[in-house]
């Protein structure tokens, strides 16, 4: 079986190799340039002037960057937790809804996902301005919760669908209180979805620029906004240093997650049921 597939996909090996090399050169050339020039002694992004660690030192004392990093993390943490909580509760509720109502709610859920970020950003900005909210930390947080909830729901809902509805009833029959049944029976079953939702919404929040740009006002900036305004000023190798650090962090996280899941996959597949 495998052989047949391999045969179907086979072709000139060198061409394939060259092609993939080209794609990876394209993907990594900018990253490599960013990282290499983070050690550049000259204040230039394309002319080399010797090795230095100056930009990393400056980065760690740059209050603008550090405070926006803090804003980014706090917003990501709070918005992912709130969005996941709301989504969990909603998904449990959705299960009890009739088909038509459920479809209606799901359509509502898809609206922010299919909306371009630009429109989501400006529409939320208009909402806050209309309600006379001052744009700042709170509006930024609300906006992040708003765009995160649909993604959290879509992460949890599949787990909810796999859930055996009789489990909850059985728990009640066996004398569990509704809250107990919820926490002890339903929650553990949908937990993988909840964790996915947390991770996904956290990364979405960290990565967002467009919606934050329109909803953060002038008093507060997250990392993306700070980078954006830095990128439009003079050449500043601190941006490179920041990129290099972010790249290393992402790389490490992905490798760890990947290593973990690979190891788990190699284990014999004995599902512990509880």
């Amino acid at each position: 079986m495998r052989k047949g597939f391999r045969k179907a996909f086979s072709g000139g090996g060198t061409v394939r190799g060259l092609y993939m090399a080209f794609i990876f050169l394209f993907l990594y050339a900018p990253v490599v340039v960013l990282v290499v020039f983070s050690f550049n002694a000259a204040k230039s992004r394309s002319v080399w002037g010797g090795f230095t660690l100056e930009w990393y030192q400056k980065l760690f004392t740059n209050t603008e960057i550090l405070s926006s990093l803090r804003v980014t993390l706090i917003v990501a943490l709070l918005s992912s937790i709130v969005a996941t909580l709301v989504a969990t509760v909603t998904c449990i509720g959705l299960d009890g809804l009739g088909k038509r109502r459920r479809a209606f709610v799901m359509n509502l859920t898809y609206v922010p996902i299919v909306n371009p970020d630009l429109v989501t950003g400006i529409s939320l900005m208009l909402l806050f301005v209309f309600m006379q909210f001052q744009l700042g930390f709170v509006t930024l947080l609300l906006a992040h919760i708003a765009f995160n909830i649909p993604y959290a729901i879509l992460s949890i809902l599949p787990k909810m669908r796999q859930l055996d509805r009789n489990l909850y009833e059985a728990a009640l029959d066996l004398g569990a209180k509704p809250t107990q049944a919820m926490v002890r029976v339903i929650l553990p079953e949908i937990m993988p979805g909840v964790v996915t939702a947390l991770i996904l919404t956290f990364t979405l929040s960290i990565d967002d620029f467009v919606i934050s740009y329109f909803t953060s006002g002038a008093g507060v900036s997250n990392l993306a906004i700070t980078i954006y305004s830095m990128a439009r000023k003079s050449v500043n190798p601190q941006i490179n240093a920041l990129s290099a650090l972010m790249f290393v962090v992402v790389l490490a996280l992905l490798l760890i997650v990947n290593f973990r899941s690979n190891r788990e996959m190699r284990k014999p597949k004995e599902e512990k049921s509880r």
Partner: protein
Amino acid sequence: MKLRWMAYPYVLWTVVFTIAPLLLVAWFAFTTMQPDGSTVFTFSGFEKIVGGDRVPLDLLGLQKIFGITLDVPLYLNIFVKSLQIALLSTLACLAFGYPAAYLLARRTANRRGGTDLLLLLFVIPMWMNALLRTYAWLALLEPNGIVNTVLSAVGLPRGQFLYNDFGIGLGMVYNYLPFMVLPIYSVLVKVDRSVIEAAEDLGADRRHVFTRVTLPLSMPGVMSGINMVFMPAMTTFLIPNLLGGGRYMLIGNVIERQYMIARDWTTASALSIVLLVFVLASMKFLTRYEKGNEGGGVLL
């Protein structure tokens, strides 16, 4: 389970944070603030889109190559220009991305499990902030940048790579390529191998297996890839702002400037409505096509 009440707070939330904001965009598009602070109904936003200055349509070299001058409203021209570069970038993503997805899927098929390192390597740059990835191209492409330095070092003429269609298109392809590759990849890895074997057993050669079996089966991935590239490409304002030298305007830039700099919210909202309707319509069109292809039913 009688827990349906738990879904209701969320319904209220979406009404406030999804429906109301969109209605507000429409409301702002049709109203304008009078000097005395009162709001009145107006079509001025939409009138500005179809009125105002007229410029020669800048479509696929219509004017430069064929010498046809077709004067259209300024904003319509920008809209056409945005559509053009978004479509070209989507095509480029497809052209470069499909073989990559194909080769990655092939590697995965030949593995025994676990994640392919190459696939991981492909995904990693995507995890870096889009701003930083785009910014990085400045160093490479600017007039005194690395590419030009290398070109002149080997005796080739320097090129103007930034602030034009090439630079913006490249920025889009770079940012959105994974959005094309990953959906195609995920469809291709799920292709039932026995279908390919069956085709081979029935005497199809490699080319036929690809054009008659693999390619049609991967169409849903292609369609969702097109969707995921075209949408952000059509609405971006970040890429032109970073790579456009301030003189390259797409519809996203016009909307952003009208909201944030000129503060003409009526025109900005009218433009947003037009853009939103256009994007949703094209998405509807794409997903319809996608469904039409699912008839084969070989897919998971």
